C-alpha cells in the first residue's frame, strides 16, 4: 500500500530531515511513528500525501509511483488519504460543519449524504453542539477534534495522524484511539505519529522509531522508545 525506498529529504534551507528511509506498510496496518522532536516524523508523513516531495528515492502509494504522477492527479490521490495535521489546518473562515463538509464537497457528494456523514463524525468527536462555530471560537482540543473529524469523514483508505492527541485530555484521547481502532478494524490503514508513551504501550501496534532522519527501530507490537 505504502512503499518507500531510500528516501532522502533536504529542505530548501539545507536541513536534511530524512536520511535514507525505506519502509513498507501494508493495507490495514496500524503504525505508530515515534521519535524525538525534530526527528523527521512529520516530514516522513508529509511525503505520503505529497505536501513534501523527496529529494531522492521512490514512493509508491496505492500502486502509484509518486514521482510519475501528473500534478492534476494529486488531488484524487489525496482523497484516499485522510490527514490530521499537527497544526490542524482548519479553514479559519468556515464553520466546524463547513470545514468537515469541505472534504465531501470536493468529491461531489450529495448534500443529503454530506449532512448525514458530517453529523455522524461530529457525534464521534463530541462536537455536535459546536457545528456552527468557527475555529477561532474553539478551544485547542476542540480544533484538534475537528481536524480528526475531517480526516475520517469520507472513509479514506489511509488515515494519517500527526500527533492527534497532543491537545487532548486522556479521556478524550482514549475515545479517539477507540475510533481509530474501529476504523482500522474495517480495513483502513492508520499511520500515527505520537509522543504518548501511554498510548503506544497500551494499544500495542507496529512501531517505527525515527531519530535524526533514520529509522532506528521497526517492530511489531513494540513499546514506545527510540533508543536502539
Amino acid at each position, binding site marked *: 500500500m505504502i512503499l518507500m525506498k531510500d528516501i532522502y529529504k533536504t529542505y530548501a534551507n539545507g536541513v536534511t530531515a530524512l536520511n535514507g528511509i525505506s519502509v513498507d506498510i501494508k493495507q490495514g496496518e496500524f503504525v505508530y511513528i515515534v521519535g524525538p522532536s525534530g526527528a523527521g516524523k512529520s516530514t516522513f508523513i508529509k511525503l505520503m500525501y505529497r*505536501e513534501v516531495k523527496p529529494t531522492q528515492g521512490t514512493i509508491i502509494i496505492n500502486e502509484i509511483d509518486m514521482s510519475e504522477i501528473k500534478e492534476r492527479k494529486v488531488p484524487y490521490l489525496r482523497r484516499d488519504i485522510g490527514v490530521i*495535521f499537527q497544526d490542524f489546518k482548519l479553514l479559519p473562515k468556515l464553520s466546524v460543519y463547513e470545514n468537515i463538509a*469541505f472534504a465531501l464537497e470536493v468529491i461531489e457528494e450529495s448534500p443529503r449524504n454530506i449532512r448525514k456523514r458530517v453529523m455522524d463524525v461530529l457525534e464521534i468527536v463530541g462536537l455536535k453542539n459546536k457545528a456552527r462555530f468557527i475555529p477561532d471560537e474553539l478551544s485547542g482540543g476542540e480544533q484538534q477534534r475537528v481536524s480528526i473529524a475531517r480526516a475520517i469523514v469520507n472513509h479514506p483508505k489511509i488515515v494519517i495522524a500527526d500527533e492527534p492527541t497532543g491537545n487532548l485530555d486522556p479521556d478524550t484521547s482514549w475515545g479517539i484511539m477507540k475510533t481509530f481502532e474501529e476504523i482500522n478494524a474495517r480495513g483502513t490503514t492508520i499511520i500515527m505519529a505520537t509522543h504518548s508513551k501511554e498510548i503506544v504501550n497500551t494499544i500495542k501496534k507496529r512501531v517505527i522509531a525515527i531519530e535524526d532522519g533514520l529509522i532506528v527501530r521497526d517492530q511489531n507490537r513494540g513499546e514506545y522508545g527510540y533508543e536502539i
Partner: protein
Amino acid sequence: MNTAMKFRTLTRHLREGCKNIIRNGWMTIASVGAVTTTLILVAAFLALVLNLNQMANNIENDVEIKVLIDQTADEEQITDLGDNIKALSGIDTVQFSSKDDELVGLIESMGEEGEAWQLYEQDNPLSHAYAVKAQNPADTERIAKDILGMDNVQDVNYGRDYVEGLFQFNDYARTIGLAIIIGLVFTAIFLISNTIKITIMARSREIGIQKLVGATNGFIRWPFFIEGMLLGILGSLIPIGAILGGYYYLVNNLGVLDNYSFVTLLPYNPFAWQLSLIILAIGVLIGIWGSVMSVRKFLKV
C-alpha cells in the same frame, strides 16, 4: 471524473463565491473600494474625452467653404454653379449669399472696427458667394479644389490655414485623449487586480489547505471566479450611480456655457447608459481576471 462538473457542485461554487464576499469582510470592502474609485476615475475621463471629441466634431462641422463668384457672372450662371456644386459628392448644404449679405456679415464680424467700412455700402467691392458645407469636414479641401476648377468661380476660400491647423490640433487632442483613456484603463486594470491579488495572497494558506484536503484547482478556482465577478459588480454600482446622476445634472445645468455654440453634451440617452454598461463590463472583467489570475499562483501545492 475530471471533466463534467455536477450541477450541485456548480451551485455550491456559486454559493461559496457569494458567501466569501461576506466572510472576507474588510477585505471585500477594501477591494470594492478600489474598484469603485478607479472606475469612477475611468468613467469621468471617458465622459470628458468622449464629449470633448464630440465638441471637436462640432467645431469641425462649422467649417464652411466660401465660393466667391465672378463679378461678371449672370443670374443663370450663378444658379448653374450652385447646381454643379450640389452635384459634387459629399456635399451637405449649399447656401447662396449676395454681395450685400456678405458686406453685412463682414461688418458684423469685425465688431466696432467694422463701422468705418459702412461708408462703402454703396460701393460694395465684394462678390456674391456660395457657402458650402461638406458632409464630412475632412473632405473640405478636396471639395474646395473641385469647385475652384468650375466656371464663374473667382476664388474659393475656406481659411485653409485655420482649417488645417484646426484639424491638426483636434487630431493631437484626440490622440492625447485616447492615450489618457488607454492609460487610465490600464491603470484601473493594474490597481484593481493588484488589490484583489493582495487580498488573495492573504488567503494563500487557505488555498493551500484546500489543496491538501483533495480539492482540484478547478474546484478552488470557481468560487474565486464568482467572487471576482461580484467584486466587479459591487464596485461598479457607485460609479454607475455617479454616471447616471452626475451626467443628468451636467446635461441640465450647462446653460451657463450657452454662448459657446459648440459646447453641447452627448445626449443623456443613450450615452449615459452606454457608458454605464462599459463601466460594468470593465469592472466585471477585471474582477474576474484579477481573481482568477491571482489564485493561480497559489494552486501549486
